[in-house]
C-alpha cells in the first residue's frame, strides 16, 4: 500500500514538473543608428567553450542564409600558409607473406585571421570591407527557476556604434539543459535582430 502511494506520488511529481507553466520569455530590443549591413564578421567571445562556438555557428549560418556575407576568421589565412604533404607507401614480405599499406600526413602551417594580433585584424577587416560586427552572448541566471539570457548585437565596424541588439531571457525547464535553453534564447534574440 505504501509502495503504491509513493509510486503515485512520484508520478504526480513528475507530471507536475512536466506541466508546470514556465515564465513567459522576456524579449527586449534596442535599435541604434540605421546603417547598411552587408558584410559582417562574427567576433568569437572570450568564452571558448563548445557551446559558445556552437552558438556562434548557429548565428553565422542563419545570417548567411539571410544573404549576409559572413567573414569566418578561422577559415581565412592571415598570410600565405605552407602546405606539406608526405605520403608513404610501404610493402613488406615476412616468411613469404606480402603486405602493403600507406600513410599520409598533410600539414598546413601559418596563422589564420583568428590568430593575428588585434591591430592586424582591424586593418584586415577594414581592407575586406567588413561593415558590421556581430556578437553573441549568453549567460546563465542562477536562480529558481533557472533562466538563461542571450544577446545578439550588431555594431558598425567603423565607429562601433550600435545598429541593433536584442536580448531574450527564458526559463530553463526542469528537463531541459542549459545548452538547450541557450540555443532557444539565442534563436529568439536573433529572430528579433533580423525582424
Amino acid at each position, binding site marked *: 500500500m505504501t509502495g503504491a502511494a509513493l509510486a503515485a506520488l512520484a508520478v504526480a511529481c513528475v507530471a507536475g514538473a512536466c506541466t508546470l507553466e514556465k515564465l513567459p520569455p*522576456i*524579449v*527586449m530590443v*534596442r535599435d541604434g543608428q540605421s546603417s547598411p549591413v552587408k558584410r559582417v564578421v562574427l*567576433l*568569437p*567571445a*572570450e*568564452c571558448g567553450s563548445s557551446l559558445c562556438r556552437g552558438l556562434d555557428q548557429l548565428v553565422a549560418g542563419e545570417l548567411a542564409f539571410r544573404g549576409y556575407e559572413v567573414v569566418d576568421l578561422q577559415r581565412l589565412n*592571415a598570410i600565405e600558409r605552407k602546405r606539406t604533404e608526405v605520403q608513404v607507401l610501404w610493402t613488406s614480405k615476412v616468411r613469404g607473406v606480402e603486405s602493403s599499406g600507406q600513410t*599520409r*600526413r*598533410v*600539414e*598546413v*602551417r*601559418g*596563422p*589564420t585571421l583568428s*590568430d*593575428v*594580433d*588585434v*591591430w*592586424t*585584424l*582591424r586593418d584586415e577587416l577594414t581592407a575586406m570591407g567588413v561593415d558590421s560586427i556581430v*556578437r553573441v*552572448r*549568453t*549567460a*546563465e*541566471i*542562477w*536562480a529558481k527557476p533557472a533562466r538563461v*539570457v542571450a*544577446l545578439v*548585437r550588431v*555594431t558598425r565596424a567603423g565607429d*562601433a*556604434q*550600435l545598429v541593433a*541588439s536584442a*536580448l531574450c*531571457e527564458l526559463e530553463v525547464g526542469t528537463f531541459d539543459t542549459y545548452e538547450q535553453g541557450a540555443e532557444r534564447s539565442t534563436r529568439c534574440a536573433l529572430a528579433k535582430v533580423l525582424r
Partner: protein
Amino acid sequence: MLVLPTTCTSLSYPALCLPATCATGGDPRRVVPPSFAAYIDPALRLKLEFAGFTLAEAGAMRITTADRVDVNGKSRRVEGEGPQTVAELGFEDVQTIAMSLKLPSVLVPNLTIRPAAHAMQEAILNVVLVEVSTRWPRWTATCSEIVFSPEETMNRLANCVGNGVLAALAPENVIGKEL
C-alpha cells in the same frame, strides 16, 4: 570600452578566490572553473552591452600573432612566449593599448571576499569604468552579498551590477520592466 576579466581579492584567506575551495558535494564530474570570473563576466558583459556599451574583451584581443598548425584536419594554435592577450598585461600597458585602439575607457571588475558575521563570507563586486585619457573613474557600481552558494552569489552580484548600470544609464532597458 576595453573590458578586463574579473579579478578576485581576499586578504584574509586567498584560497577563497578559488571556486574549487568553495565547491561542496554535488556531482563529482562537475567541472569547477579556475576563477569566479566564469560566473560573473558573461552576465555582467551581456548587460553592459545591452546598456549600450560596445565591449572589446581583453582576453580575446591578441597582442602577438600566433602560429597555427593543421595536421590531417586537426587544428591547433601554437603560442609564442610571453603575454598573448591584453588581459595578461599590467594596467599601464592595458591603457596604452586602449589608447592605440582609440578605446576611451577600461572596465575593471574586482571581486573581494572577506569575512562576515557568524563565520560567513561576504562577496563584494566592484566595477569601475576608468577613463583612459584622465585615468579617473567615470563611474563605479558595487554590489555585495553574503556567500551562501558561491556560483549563485557571484552570478547574482554580476546581475546586480549589470542591472544597476542599466538602471542608471539606460533606464528604458531594465530587464523585467513591463514591455
